């Protein structure tokens, strides 16, 4: 029988909350006994829970009194941890990517796929009526079914966000490489941007011990350290080469994100026409497959059958799309204190689909042995054999070092078959001290940890497991564009006129080239039109335009 891996874990002094698939369990922190579980719900409650699907976003307030969850149905539920009763259920305007309680637990902030941050009070009722039913619906820019307060918005999927230590600023990150620092709650006032990422940003962290700094990671080969108030990049830590070998979850090459369905809509109409014109010519169709978003496998095969002249190599490539390794930082944490007492000592991070936990010295500090600056940062790896879904800092002692609990995809690798395989652990404890990881063995497990690996592991149907889609971000975050194709690059201008192949490009293109060549020629003769002539030219242009319309 398949099991749910734990996707999130929130430890507390007396109790802890663990999330597995659609289920929430509240566990006694000392004894490990399960205090309350949604798996015990019955009837309608159970049905509604399963209908919501896997929990995508979740947070727990500071006192572990409330849990907020959102599944695939955009319903934000606030649970009370005593009884796991749903205190409120509110519909969100878009699918969220992150939800968070403020420090006082009275406000819930949501980030969504449309790029907006909304704020909701813990208990509904005090907010105004839904703006949809207001008397001026034609000025409503955002659907807002539950009357949330719009704090800010990007024109891009928000991947994550956090509030600064004093909760006066909100830091938001998006799929289009931006990190924005805005006032909170006056999100309309942008204080700064931390720009420099060249790929999506997927993880943010502000060290408790250095609250003016921000560490960000995503698809870029380096983590970046910022002074977030100034929006100034301070240093980068190259991690790609160390992390890449441990990324075991691969994705089909060029599988685009969900916002790309309409493709390059804005490209010139002529190009679309040409593309259409090419259909039916087997050879160029094969090119098309390579340069455009790959079709789902089945469809590509179908087309291959129709097209006799596709060569064998191409066929094979279509059937088994090449897998790509995508780096996407999942979580960043800092532990210890630097020798000077200012700032943390080490950075610990994980990447989506990677089987290891990674650490490196916090930049700005120097490694004691070599005295080298962080330019050649040493990255320590702790391979746990299964993809790391998340990790939590359980303790962070001056002397004993830090203790992490690492949530693993224990089902990974078993799914393919092999029912008799021994159960893998869903959570491992890892001690980190003086730049070294030690994976703790089973004997030293606390009752809570044993419980997380035994009684708190819930059965899942294969359908439920696959709906978890734990690694979806690896496909949806990277951009669906081709770096080599720049539509504004027109370097062909000089030679293309004489080239017979370019005549296929059509009259428009030729016309442009002619004009450009004429200009170049005129320039080289340093011939200059008088302003008057030029005006004429402009007017003539305008007249032609009129006729064209």
């Amino acid at each position, binding site marked *: 029988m398949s099991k749910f891996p734990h996707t999130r874990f929130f430890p507390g002094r007396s109790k802890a909350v663990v999330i597995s698939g659609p289920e929430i369990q509240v566990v006694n922190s000392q004894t490990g006994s399960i205090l309350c579980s949604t798996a015990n719900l019955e009837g309608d409650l159970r049905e509604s829970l399963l209908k919501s699907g896997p929990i995508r976003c979740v947070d727990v307030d500071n006192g572990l009194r409330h849990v907020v969850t959102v599944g695939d149905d955009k319903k934000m539920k606030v649970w009370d941890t005593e009884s796991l009763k749903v205190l409120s259920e509110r519909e969100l305007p878009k699918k969220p990517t992150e939800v968070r309680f403020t420090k006082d637990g009275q406000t819930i902030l949501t980030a969504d796929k449309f790029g907006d941050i909304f704020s909701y009070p813990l208990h509904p009722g005090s907010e105004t009526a839904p703006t949809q039913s207001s008397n001026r619906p034609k*000025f409503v*820019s955002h659907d807002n079914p539950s009357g949330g307060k719009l704090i800010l918005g990007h024109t891009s999927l928000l991947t994550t966000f956090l509030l600064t230590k004093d909760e006066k600023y909100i830091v938001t990150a998006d799929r289009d490489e931006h990190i924005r620092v805005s006032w909170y709650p*006056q999100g309309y006032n942008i204080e700064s941007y931390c720009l*420099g990422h060249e790929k999506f940003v997927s993880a943010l962290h502000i060290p408790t011990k250095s609250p003016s700094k921000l560490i960000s990671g995503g698809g870029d080969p380096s983590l970046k350290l910022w002074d977030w108030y100034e929006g100034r990049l301070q240093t980068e830590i190259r991690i790609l080469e160390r992390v890449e070998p441990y990324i075991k979850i691969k994705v089909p090459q060029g599988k685009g994100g969900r916002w790309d369905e309409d493709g390059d*809509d804005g490209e010139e109409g002529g190009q679309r026409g040409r593309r259409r014109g090419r259909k039916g010519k087997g050879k160029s169709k094969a090119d098309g497959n390579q340069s455009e978003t790959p079709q789902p496998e089945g469809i590509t095969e179908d087309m291959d059958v129709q097209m006799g002249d596709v060569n064998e190599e191409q066929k094979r490539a279509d059937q088994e799309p090449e897998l790509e390794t995508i780096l996407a930082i999942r979580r960043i944490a800092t532990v210890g204190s630097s020798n000077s007492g200012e700032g943390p000592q080490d950075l610990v991070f994980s990447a989506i689909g990677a089987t290891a936990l990674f650490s490196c010295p916090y930049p700005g500090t120097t490694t004691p042995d070599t005295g080298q600056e962080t330019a050649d940062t040493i990255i320590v790896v702790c391979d746990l054999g299964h993809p790391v879904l998340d990790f939590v800092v359980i303790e962070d002692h001056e002397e004993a070092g830090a203790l992490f609990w690492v949530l693993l995809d224990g089902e990974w690798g078993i799914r393919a078959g092999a029912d008799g395989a021994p159960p893998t652990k869903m959570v491992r404890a890892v001690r980190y001290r003086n730049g070294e990881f030690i994976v703790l063995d089973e004997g030293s497990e606390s009752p809570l940890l044993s419980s997380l690996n035994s009684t708190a592991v819930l059965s899942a149907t294969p359908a439920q497991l696959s709906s978890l889609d734990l690694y979806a971000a690896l496909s949806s975050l990277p951009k669906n564009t081709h770096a080599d194709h720049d539509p504004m690059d027109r370097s062909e201008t000089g030679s293309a006129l004489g080239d017979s192949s370019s005549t296929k490009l059509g009259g*428009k293109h030729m016309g442009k080239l002619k004009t450009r060549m*004429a200009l170049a020629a005129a320039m080289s003769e340093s011939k200059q039109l008088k302003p008057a002539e030029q005006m004429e030219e402009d007017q003539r*242009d305008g007249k032609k*335009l009129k006729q064209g319309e």
Partner: protein
Amino acid sequence: MAKRKRQPDSDPVKSLLPQKRHYRQRAHANPFSDHNLDYPASPDAIDWSTHYPAFAGTGKTPEFADVGCGFGGLLIALAPLFPDTLMLGMEIRVQVSQYVQDRIAALRATTKPETPDAETSSPGPYQNVSIVRANAMKFFPNYFRKHSLSAIFFLFPDPHFKQRKHKARIISPTLLAEYAYALRPGGIVYTITDVLDLHEWMKTHLENFPLFEPVDEETLRSEGKGPILDAVRQSTEEGKKVERNNGDKWLACFRRIEVKRE
């Protein structure tokens, strides 16, 4: 509609300016899709001297941003009026932005300075305008530093008539934050459209946005911004088209203000 008359291609040497008919493209682009855009990771990554070679070494950056500049009418009209102010047009459509690029190149090459001894003072005509193909809704802050602009223009933007497309409009409460970030306090946002619905939309959202306050035409004219207003009304292709059809134009301008912490 009358059948389009194709004029025989004129002598290529004579027509040095690009011709619009070679650059036609459908009027809409999806601002939410990825596109194959080439954009700077941050304003620090831009070498403005490739855009404004005559201003290389002055440290100047664009002060006017024409968002969705179309065929570049406003830029071309404003360039001689503010020869020392750098202006940047942003246009998402490949063909149209190429047209503006070619147009500026041709104008720079073929226009004689108005005064013969201009070498000493002015850097030459149209040296102060340039264009990028860009998605301003996504990448505005990639081009402009905080408070670096003194004017932003939204002239005849895509009305996106359908309600479900309203989210694609260039003015929205969340996007206004980005424009306010780039605009220096005191800077002006100019909006104009021939679609009353869109005018009310832009006006309402700008009025409701805490960092903007409405400013009337008279005040702007008294501040010497009359020529800008005239260009906003008349210089763009859309503006001329509306005029030909005797349509209405709705102008609304706003000033960037500052607010205090709550």
